């Protein structure tokens, strides 16, 4: 597979380490009333779509960026690649 790194262009997937669902960015608030339940969902419940999937890849053999890769799990077509840090900020992880 080839992942089009937003800064470095096409790179072989062998340079990357896979983590999984990009929903892992959304770590719950530890002070929420139902924090324990939220963390259990966060830790153990994952979607497993046949189709587009947003997932985290780490460019371990490259620039050490975490990326959010949107990949079709049925064809391996990659439709979008973003820096995870940008995604995290856009999705409210800044404070």
């Amino acid at each position: 597979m080839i992942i089009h790194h937003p800064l470095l262009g096409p790179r072989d997937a062998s340079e990357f380490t896979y983590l999984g669902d990009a929903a892992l960015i959304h770590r719950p608030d530890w002070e929420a009333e139902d924090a324990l339940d939220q963390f259990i969902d966060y830790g153990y419940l994952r979607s497993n779509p046949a189709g587009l999937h947003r997932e985290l890849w780490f460019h371990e053999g490259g620039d050490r960026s975490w990326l959010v890769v949107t990949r079709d799990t049925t064809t391996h077509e990659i439709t979008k690649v973003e820096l995870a840090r940008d995604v995290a900020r856009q999705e409210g992880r800044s404070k």
Partner: protein
Amino acid sequence: MSDRSNDMIPRTPLGGTEPRVDTHGPVTLTEVTNTAIASFASRLGQESTAQDVLAKFLGTPVPEAGRAVFGDALGAFWTGPDQWMVTAPHTSHEDLAAQLVPLANGSASITEQNDAWCRFDLLGDGLADVFERLCPFNIRACSGGEATRTSIDHLGCFVVVADPTHIMVMGPRSSAGSLHHALMTAIRSAH
């Protein structure tokens, strides 16, 4: 600080007292030890200040993603977002990191990397034939000024292209022997 006593004798990454040089066919492989290295990472919110500091130190604009710049003595290459490796002669800049810290004045995090890496320079013609046996990075498309981290025989290495006849490989120092073996094997296979 007292004078350096003569029993603290440095070793090269390959374990010798002098850098190793091998020549095979058109390619010369040289162990390069006279390189001081410091990583330079911008602090959050101070990216432009940090870049200005680095550019002033280098005397050239800082390299973009995937690029390197080379000065007379100083050089730098991009290693990640807002992050570079700065290089200088070890003989004159052993304390490169310490020199950069006051210049950055809190705008960047600077870490000494002098001995984290072994460096091998490949000089000669036909280097693309060697590198196509080593890593997925397309050396044939390089004209000079490219820098990337890639995997060579399972080792995460920086490949920095000065020009098509001069390419530097920086790998983990503890695996200098394995990296040297991989490079020599590829040179013998290609030429």
